[in-house]
């Protein structure tokens, strides 16, 4: 990720963590290639994203399946951080070197010059550009005659300041002869590297995830799934671009000196470990020949004190044999991390030189509501097309929408 005009800048990037090792009850044996393009835009001149994704799936006989995906996302726009009015970020010269201060003389994570009051600080968008390339592939094997499934997956993605490599494996075991219930297990290990421009070095961040799921067919028209997941993150979890405001006693190192307080911009600091656990429920039912309803709920909890609930309702309404309308509504709510202070709050200042601190809105308490509608059209036996439009509003006044269109060819 980099600033326009090759200047490095504080920001946040987006990309997806989605499932490619997806084990399911249905074995769709058709080989397919699919391309989708998404355009995403936020209010207040914030982020715009163009995301293109190509998916390929090929079966080899009835026992082996191969799937691969390649995607590119291009991000432009602005992302908000605490900035200085007199010495605005990125505090870099034309070569991208950090020039605001001498790192050797800078206490802790403080940036720039001390200020006697807060008038020099502003929470505003910083322009940025970024491009991410990502690819993943998975191979699935089904045993005979049980049809249990083994899967392995590999994923790699690269940005200017972030690299990720992942290995994953999954196993699905049917619990009865009728194949009405199953247990699935998945595990993944991710090795990530983030570039910290302030320190001018790459730092490691590892993620280990496991998921255990139970799927049950209740009736010929209803099935459900319950999944338990745990994730362990360790390493450089701090966002290299996010900043906070700190109030520092600049005479505390001088014995007997009267305190003199000054305000600094400072890099955010997050703990280097995060342990996550959660549960996800899905229930799908055909209410009528033309209506299929999907209900989902996820409970998420981590040891940064973030607790979140996600409720998702989606319906597939078959207008004709070839045309389906897909309305979707999603509600999301989360509590704040225990080291978060929002920029709009009365107390947004962190008072220590060190210690965990963030003003990243995504670690604050907020809720969001997403409305979406999709249109899926079967053109012929071989061709399908879809268009989806979604609109989201968060309680911290960020509005966004995204629209996607895609075609799928079966062969």
């Amino acid at each position: 990720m980099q600033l326009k005009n090759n200047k490095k800048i504080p920001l946040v990037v987006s990309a997806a963590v989605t499932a490619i090792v997806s084990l399911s009850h249905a074995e769709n044996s058709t080989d397919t290639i699919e391309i989708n393009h998404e355009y995403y835009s936020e209010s207040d001149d914030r982020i715009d994203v163009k995301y293109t994704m190509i998916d390929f799936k090929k079966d080899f006989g009835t026992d082996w399946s191969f799937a691969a995906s390649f995607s590119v996302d291009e991000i432009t726009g602005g992302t908000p951080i605490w900035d200085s009015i007199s010495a605005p970020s990125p505090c870099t010269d034309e070569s991208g070197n950090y020039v605001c201060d001498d790192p050797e003389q800078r206490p802790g994570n403080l940036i720039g010059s001390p200020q006697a009051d807060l008038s020099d600080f502003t929470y505003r968008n910083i322009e940025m550009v970024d491009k991410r390339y990502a690819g993943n592939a998975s191979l699935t094997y089904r045993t005979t005659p049980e049809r249990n499934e083994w899967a392995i997956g590999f994923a790699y993605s690269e940005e200017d300041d972030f690299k990720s490599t992942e290995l994953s494996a999954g196993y699905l075991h049917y619990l009865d002869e009728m194949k009405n219930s199953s247990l699935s297990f998945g595990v993944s290990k991710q090795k990530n590297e983030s570039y910290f421009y302030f320190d001018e070095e790459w730092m490691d961040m590892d993620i280990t995830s496991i998921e255990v799921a139970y799927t049950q067919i209740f009736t010929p028209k209803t099935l459900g799934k319950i999944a338990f997941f745990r994730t362990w993150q360790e390493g450089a979890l701090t966002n290299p671009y996010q900043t906070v405001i700190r109030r520092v006693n600049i005479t505390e190192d001088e014995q007997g000196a009267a305190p003199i307080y000054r305000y600094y911009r400072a890099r955010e600091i997050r703990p280097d470990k995060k342990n996550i656990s959660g549960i996800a429920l899905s229930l799908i039912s055909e209410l009528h020949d033309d209506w299929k309803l999907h209900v989902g709920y996820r409970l998420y909890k981590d040891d940064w004190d973030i607790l979140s609930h996600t409720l998702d309702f989606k319906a597939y309404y078959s207008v004709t044999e070839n045309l389906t309308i897909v309305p979707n509504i999603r509600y999301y709510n989360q509590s704040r991390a225990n080291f978060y202070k929002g920029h709009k709050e009365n107390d947004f200042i962190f008072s220590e030189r060190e210690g965990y601190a963030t003003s990243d809105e995504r670690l604050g308490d907020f809720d969001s509501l997403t409305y979406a509608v999709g249109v899926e059209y079967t053109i012929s036996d071989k061709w399908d097309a879809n268009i989806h439009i979604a609109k989201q509003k968060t309680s911290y006044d960020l509005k966004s929408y995204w629209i996607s269109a895609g075609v799928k060819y079966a062969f």
Partner: protein
Amino acid sequence: MHNRALQFMVFLISVFALPACMGITPVKAWEKDTLGHKHMQIGGNPSIKKINEHVYTSKEASSGGGGIGGGGCGCN
């Protein structure tokens, strides 16, 4: 807050488990035509799911529960 969440979770699991407790009549293979329909797949359209997750994971502190694998990003 946490107690309420726990109660809510227990309630949901109870609702989910109720049919199982009442006894489920096994569904035969030839009765699974509807279940095999592409619109009955958990998670819905996989491509649309990826696109939506692409947005949600970069804007929220939470993730997980939708399967294992798929790779990482510099989202948070």
